[in-house]
């Protein structure tokens, strides 16, 4: 295999992984933008989406409607989490809200274990999505699920772009994330906007959960944890709270991880996550606004 083809294959892998990170990070950023809340439960909403989809396929629903229902299920979970856990503590200090989201994580994960046990289950992916494409005499391989992930990522992100720039609700959401008090003063219904933000973010989590599970091939109650941590890094690299930042951060992180594994010596490769989280700490220290918001004021 020539160097060029090897690099091209890695680029494909990076884009595929990066689009998943971007999907998760976008949801985190929407919530953080509006509520200034680091939502640890986001990963578990992914889990809810994936499990709903698998359950519905299990009772005989076709794949596409099951995925849509999975996304709706995740959105519903997000709605309920906001209403039950986050609304009562909306004006509490940062730490209280962070802890509450940790508690929600704890409950959802253990609920998953209670109902589904912690052993992994197969994700029933339709065979057509597992078909692989071989280009350049088999030097480059990718499957239909890679393509689908990429397509769905872009379609949903374009949809989100349209939503936040062209609709009243979306514009209101951006206004609320810019300045909650001012948004309230000009007569926006902040409660409604926060609910919308949560539902949209959780829908994204549901989609990301299904795609993540489809690529991994298995689901289990703690499946949302790793992508959540990575999405934190992605969102902070890009600029926490900025949707464009989450996108940039997601793809950059995907690229970084793939290139660490592909091009660095084998002795370093196992330390990939250590490198990634060192990068997170470095960004928090030297550029807390991320790449896209270099001048944002950070309250210390």
């Amino acid at each position, binding site marked *: 295999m020539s160097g060029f083809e090897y690099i091209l294959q890695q680029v494909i892998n990076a884009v595929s992984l990066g689009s998943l990170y971007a999907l998760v990070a976008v949801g985190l950023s929407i919530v953080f933008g509006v509520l200034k809340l680091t939502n640890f439960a986001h990963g578990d909403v992914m889990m809810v989406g994936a499990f709903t989809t698998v359950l519905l396929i299990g009772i005989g629903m076709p794949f596409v409607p099951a995925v849509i229902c999975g996304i709706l299920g995740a959105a519903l979970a997000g709605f309920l989490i906001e209403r039950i856990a986050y609304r009562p*503590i909306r004006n509490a200090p940062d*730490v209280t809200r962070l802890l509450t989201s940790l508690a929600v994580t704890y409950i959802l994960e*253990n609920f998953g*274990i*209670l109902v589904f046990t912690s052993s992994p289950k197969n994700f029933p992916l339709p065979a057509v999505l597992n078909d692989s494409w071989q280009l350049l005499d088999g030097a480059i391989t990718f499957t239909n699920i890679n393509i689908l992930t990429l397509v769905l990522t872009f379609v949903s992100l374009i949809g989100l772009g349209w939503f936040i720039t062209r609709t009243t609700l979306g514009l209101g959401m951006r206004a609320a994330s810019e300045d909650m008090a001012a948004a309230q003063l000009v007569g926006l219904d902040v409660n409604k906007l926060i609910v919308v933000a949560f539902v949209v973010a959780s829908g994204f989590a549901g989609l990301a959960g299904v795609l993540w599970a489809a690529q991994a091939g298995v689901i289990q109650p703690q499946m949302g944890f790793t992508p959540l941590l990575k999405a934190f890094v992605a969102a902070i690299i890009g600029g926490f709270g900025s949707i464009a930042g989450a996108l940039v951060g997601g793809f950059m992180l995907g690229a970084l991880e793939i290139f660490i594994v592909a091009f660095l010596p084998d002795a370093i490769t*196992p330390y990939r996550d250590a490198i990634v*989280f060192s990068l997170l700490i470095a960004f*928090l220290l030297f550029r*807390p606004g991320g790449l896209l918001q270099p001048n944002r004021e950070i309250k210390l």
Partner: protein
Amino acid sequence: MIARLIIGAIVLALLAGVAFGAPSLMSDYFVRILLIIALNAIFVLSLSLSNGFTGVFSLGHVGFIGAGAYLSGILSLTVAQKASLLPHLPTFLNWFSLPFLPATLVAGCFTALLAIIVGYPLMRLSGYFVSVATMGFLIIVNVVLINASDFTRGARTFTGVPLDTSLPWVFGWLAITLFVLWRLVYSPFGRRMKAVRDDTIAASAIGISMLNTRLTAFAIGAFFAGVGGSLYAHYLGSFSPVTFYFAMTMNLIAMLVLGGMGSLSGAVIGVVCVSLLSELLRSVERGFTIGDITVPALFGASQIVLGFIFILIMIFRPKGIMGERELTFGLFKRSAKSEIKQGVL
């Protein structure tokens, strides 16, 4: 003063009596619960220093516990065990074996040093930034523990640590931890910590160095975390990197928050409540029979209940059971309230 000394001596004697007498009086099960409670009290007290009193909400504390546990474990393996379990250990570590106490002290000093190195950059951050950054630290520690297999056997179980931890050891270290933290928290330095927590800008304006104060609290907390980690290692005998990860973090934070983040006695009360509650729930969780009704085993149910209690506390009593108050039984005059009463303040 003399009366207080006498009461103090009686309390110490009582604790010592429990520590030495319990194993012969109680079943192994209760001794184990008592030991775990005391051990968790050391963890949560050391956590309260940064998270409660200084306002730096660290999610990386378990990283120090894990580092302390592994270091102390490596130091106390016998030379023969080192040769068979850790054949690639560098020569400066493989020719000796330390007894329990020195290994514990070395572990504590190492984690304190680690905290200074890590904290020097991280303690500049605040709010959720410091939480996320310290969480990053925890993950990095975990990755290093898994991959530095020459030292830690990697993801496999680290085993063979002598089972030295007994009730007197844990109670002794708990007494030392409580004493040191009590002196620290209710000293001028303690007031500096709370000033930094309550209003960083105002504290800086009157000349309190935010970084030094936070770093000192972080390092002292890490010292006792390392000590506790060593005790835990010598209690478990064998453990793996996943022992010191998010599940443990969540457990310690739940205890701290339930008890109250600005109170040492609150931290201990939180530990006792959560430990007893989860022990109780765990026995329910295994399933039981009342009359004709059989309740099946519900794994994970205890954590769900704990999670809901946690959320309710966050909503209705965010300061925890004790808040900023202390239970002193009139033993010490060092709570702010009695200082006001006695006209010291």
